[in-house]
C-alpha cells in the first residue's frame, strides 16, 4: 500500500480537485483506493456526494484503525472508497498535541488499511501544524499544486525551508503547476523560473478550466461529464505521470 497526499499551505490552489480526480483514475485503473478527506470543510466528500456521519467522531480519528475503518463509505465508482470529513476535524491540531509521538500517529493507524487498499489518497486542509506534519510522515509522496504566481512561488519556497528545518525528506515533495493560464505572461515566466530552480516539477500542467470549476455543479470527477475535454486529459496524464513515481517511492 502507498499513501499519497495533496498538500499546500495555500487554499484554493486545486488540492481537492486533484485528490478527487486522481483517486478516481487510480480506482478506474483497477487499484483499490481509499480517499480520506482531512479538511473539515469536506470539499472532496461533497464532490463524491458522501454525507458526513452525524456522529461527532473526530476525537476518535487517531485512536485506532478499527475506529477509522467504520467510517469508510463506498463511492459511486468501483474500487473507490471514501472516509468523509466531519466538522470536528477542525480540532485535529489540538488533539494531536495531546499525543506523544504525535506526528507518527497517522502513519500508524493507516497501516491497517493495507489489508484492503493499495492506495490511500489524503486530501489536506491548507494549514501547517501537527496535522500536516503527520501527513508528511505518513505520505510516501506529497503532491503540491502550485499556481504559477509570485506569491505561490514564495509559499513553495517556505514549504521547502520547513522540510529542511525539520528534517523531512524533500524528495517526497512533488510539485506541479495548477490552474495555469498560458495566455498570462506572469504564469509563463514563473513556470520557467521555478522549473529552472526546482528540477522535480512534473511535466503535466493542470490548466485553468471551466470544466474543473464545474465539478461543484456536477459533484463528480471531471471524466464523468467532460470526458473529451483538455482538463480531463490533463488529470489523466497527471495520473499516468504519477504511477512510476508512486511505484518507485
Amino acid at each position, binding site marked *: 500500500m502507498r499513501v499519497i497526499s495533496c498538500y499546500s499551505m495555500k487554499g484554493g490552489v486545486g488540492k481537492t480537485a486533484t485528490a478527487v480526480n486522481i483517486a478516481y483514475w487510480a480506482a478506474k485503473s483497477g487499484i483499490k483506493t481509499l480517499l480520506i478527506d482531512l479538511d473539515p470543510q469536506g470539499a472532496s466528500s461533497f464532490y463524491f*456526494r*458522501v454525507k458526513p456521519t452525524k456522529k461527532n467522531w473526530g476525537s476518535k480519528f487517531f485512536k485506532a484503525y478499527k475506529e477509522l*475503518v*467504520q*467510517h*469508510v*463509505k*463506498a463511492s*459511486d465508482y468501483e474500487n473507490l472508497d471514501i472516509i468523509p470529513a466531519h466538522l470536528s476535524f477542525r480540532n485535529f491540531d489540538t488533539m494531536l498535541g495531546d499525543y506523544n509521538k504525535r506526528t507518527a500517529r497517522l502513519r500508524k493507524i493507516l497501516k491497517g488499511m493495507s489489508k484492503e487498499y493499495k492506495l490511500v489518497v489524503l486530501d489536506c486542509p491548507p494549514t501547517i501544524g501537527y496535522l500536516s506534519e503527520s501527513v508528511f510522515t505518513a505520505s510516501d509522496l506529497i503532491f503540491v499544486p502550485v499556481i504559477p504566481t509570485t506569491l505561490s512561488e514564495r509559499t513553495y519556497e517556505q514549504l521547502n525551508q520547513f522540510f529542511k528545518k525539520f528534517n523531512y525528506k524533500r524528495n517526497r515533495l512533488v510539485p506541479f503547476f495548477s490552474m495555469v493560464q498560458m495566455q498570462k505572461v506572469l504564469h509563463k515566466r514563473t513556470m520557467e523560473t521555478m522549473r529552472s530552480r526546482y528540477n522535480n516539477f512534473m511535466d503535466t500542467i493542470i490548466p485553468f478550466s471551466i470544466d474543473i470549476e464545474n465539478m461543484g455543479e456536477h*459533484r463528480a470527477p471531471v471524466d464523468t461529464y467532460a470526458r473529451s475535454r483538455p482538463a480531463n486529459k490533463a488529470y489523466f496524464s497527471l495520473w499516468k505521470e504519477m504511477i512510476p513515481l508512486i511505484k518507485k517511492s
Partner: protein
Amino acid sequence: MTELQAKHWLLPDNKVLRQLESSLKTRFSMQKKPGNKLKYQLQDDYDWHLWHAGYRLFKTAQCEFRLESPKGSICEIAGENARFWWDFPDGEFKNILKRCIKLRALGEICRFEITESTIDLLDTERKTVARIKTTTFFTEDAETPGQQFLSLIPLRGYQNAFNKALELCQAQLNDDAPEPSLDKLLKILGIKLKEKPTNKYGITPSEPCEQAVLQMCKSMFSQACKNEAGVILDTDTEFLHQYRVAIRKARSLINLMKKAFSETTHSQLKTELAALASPTNPLRDLDVFLLDKSYYQSLLPENYAPGLETLFDHIAKERQVAYKRVVTLFKSRAYRQKCKTLEVLFSSAPSFETESSHKPVLTMAKKRTYNRYRKICVLGNEINDETPDADVHELRIECKKLRYLIEFFSELFPEKRISTLAKSLKTLQTILGNFNDYSVQKEFLAAHLAKEKDAEVIAAINGLIAVLHQKQLQERARVCKAFAEFSNTSIATEFEQLFAQ
C-alpha cells in the same frame, strides 16, 4: 463490522420488476442504466479441463477472453483464431491455460447473450446507496425463454439503505435464489456437463475373468472411437493420441489376459486391433516431431536455424499427406466394417473356452500383476551401467505392462495404495521413457535423412542426432539409481500384500 452480502432473486416477469420499482420509488430516487446485450461464448477443450479445474472461459464477439474462477477473473485479448495456449500473450492467463488444457484446443461449448441493467438507488444528495442489477440470459435461438435474475447489491457504509431496500424487495419477490449461475444456464440450454474421465470399468472382483476383460475392452474401444471425429476435423493432436492410447490399452489388456481366451480368439482380437492402429503411426510420429519444434530449436546453435526451419517445413508437408491418409481411412467402408466387427466381438457373451476364463477376475489380476512385478525385479537387478540398450528397452516394456495392470484393475483394490504404487512406478518409467524417446527421435530423424538433399537440412538433422545421443547417454546413467529406488523393500512389501495370494 459484518460485511453485507448481495441478495439474488429469480424474476418471474417484468411486471414484478415494475411493481418493485414503484415501491422503491417511495423511499429512494432512482437512476436507471440500461445495459447492452452482450454476446458470449463459453469455451473449453474437449475434456472440459478448464471447467473441471474450476475455471470458466468466456469469449466475447470482440475476441476478449475472460477467465473466471472463484478467485477472480483475468482478461486477455487474442486473435479470432486463438485456440491453443501458445496463441495467447505471455502472462497468468496463458500459464493457466497451459497447465489445464495442455495440447488441447479450445472450442465452443455454447453461446448465449447477457444483458445487465442497473438501477442506482440514490439518497437526497443523489449519492448511490445501493444498486439493483438485473441479469438476463438469452439463448441464441429465440425459442428458448431468457431467464432473468434480480440482485440487490450493498454499498459499503450504507447498511440502513440496504436493509430498507431489502425489505421492499422481499415484499415483492419470492425466496432468494442463489447467485445467477452459469451452471443453471447450461441446464436451460440443454448442455450436459462432461464428466471427468474415470479409470473405472464397472467390474466386480468375483466376475469371471473373460467377461470382465471383454467389458473393459468394449469400454476402451468405444473410448477410442469417440476421438475419430476430432481426428477428422483436425481440432488438435490429442484426438489421435487418445485414440491410439485407448486402442493400445485394449491390445495390452488382451495380451496381458491372454489366458482368458482361446488361442484363435486371442490372435484374432490382437490382429484386428493392431491393424486398426498401425495406419495412424506415421501421422502420430510426425505430430510428435512438430509439437517439439521449440525444443529442437533450443538444442542447436543459431547457425543451424535455417536448415532446421526447412526441415520443419518438409515435415509439416509430410504431415498433411499423412493426415489426409488417416481421414480417408477413417471414412472408408473397410475401416467402418473392422470397427463393427470388433464391437460385436467385445459385446458378445463370453465363450469360456479356457480354464482361466472362469476364474474370478481379481484372482487373475493379482496373479498377472505379481508375476510381472517379480519379473521386473529379476530384469532390473541384472542391469548395470554396461548392460546393452536392448535390455533396458525390455525393462521399460515390462514396466509399462505392470503399470497397465495396476491401472486397469485399480477399482478392485484400495484406491490410495494403488495410486501410491503407480506413482513410484511412474518415476522409474519417466526415466526409461525418456531413454526410449531419444531412441525413437534418433530413428525418426535417421529415417528422414534419406529423403533430404539440402546440405543445411542434413547438417541440422545430424546435429540433432548427435545432441539427442548425448542426452540419451545422460538418461541411461540415471537408470540404475532409479531402479534401485523402485525396488526398495517398502514397495516390495506393498506388492506382496496387495497382489500375492
